[in-house]
């Protein structure tokens, strides 16, 4: 069997060591490049943070709507109902992960909120915490993108875009689950 670290220059390093280097090295590179090119990195940073502020403020309302929905669903024990229906088929996964898989293509906010719940319940570095992060990172919200992009130019018939998008989501999520189980 091939092992992850065989692919990288770190030799004996593990995924953990490698991934911990990612951010600092990236930042260091940026500092170096901005110095060489004479770019005002400080101003750029401040501007980016300002934009980030606007961005998060603009998604706050939809985030609240999603958290409300999830709390209500949770309160009525509907997640348990859903997973009771699916779990005979896929018994090795907890109900929160299954619910997240269902929500991922529909709403990025909902699956993100579920991911945080999983991180809280199982721990961010646990198997399921990692799995939830991988699932969240494996695809984007198909329904949102399709609705937004096609409606922006007035297209009514979307041909097979939805099916291809959902198929890709499905493959991504299945890959996420299997890869996590295999490499964790």
């Amino acid at each position, binding site marked *: 069997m091939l092992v992850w670290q065989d692919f990288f220059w770190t030799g004996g390093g593990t995924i*953990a060591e490698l*991934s*911990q280097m990612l951010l600092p090295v990236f930042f260091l590179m*940026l500092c170096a490049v*901005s110095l060489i090119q004479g*770019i005002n*990195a400080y101003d*750029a*940073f401040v501007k*980016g*943070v300002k*934009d*980030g*502020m606007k*961005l*998060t403020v603009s998604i*706050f309302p939809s985030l*609240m709507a999603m*958290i409300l*929905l999830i*709390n*209500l*669903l949770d*309160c*009525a*024990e509907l997640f348990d109902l859903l997973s009771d229906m699916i779990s005979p088929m896929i018994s090795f996964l907890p109900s929160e992960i299954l619910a997240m898989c269902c929500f991922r293509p529909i709403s990025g906010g909902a699956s*993100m909120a579920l991911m*945080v719940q999983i*991180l*809280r319940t199982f721990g*961010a570095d646990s198997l399921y915490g990692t799995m939830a*992060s*991988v*699932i*969240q*990172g*494996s*695809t*984007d*919200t*198909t329904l949102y*993108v399709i*609705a*937004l*992009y*096609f409606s*922006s130019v*007035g*297209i009514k*018939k979307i*041909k097979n*875009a939805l099916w*291809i*998008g959902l*198929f*890709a*989501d499905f493959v*991504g*999520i299945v890959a*996420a689950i299997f890869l996590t189980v295999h490499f964790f």
Partner: protein
Amino acid sequence: MNLIWVILCGISLLFGLLKNRADLLNQVLVQIGMDTFDFALPVIVTTCFFNGIMEIARECGVLDQLQKLLQPFLNKLFPDVPSDHPSLGYIGANIVINMFGLGFAATPSGLKAMEHLQKLNHDKKQASRPMVTFLVLNTAGVTLFSTNIIAYRMAEGSVDVTRYLPLAIASTCCASLAGLLLDRWWNYR
């Protein structure tokens, strides 16, 4: 989205009431403001930070470089679009910004790309082949670096924040590949 939201909210309210859980439902509704705030605050702070870093990357021309690297690849993916068409530039920028996990920052360039693709489109009401390919690239696009997920993992006290990354990159590649292959097989036969 509206329909899903209203119906699911309604169903859970109904279920909750039927199960005699009015007190819990009430608690959820009263606390939702504080809950959302607690949930969002750590994320807002970390997202702001990463947005700052990404802005430096953009200023340094890292994003432009990646876009140039993608050019030959884009010409292959969109055979219906002339190779010097402005839509390809926007598609490239969109893919690159998505790669860095800045989904919301990618939206403006994505909308521009759709606008230009629509100019090439013969039937203005129906999606063209390049549009479908672009949508697939966008929804199943390769994400190298999701600032949101990293932010939440940090907020939840992860010791190794980026541990999920190699696995996420691998599965996102699977998703993109599957989507593109299906698109090829279905629409370009």
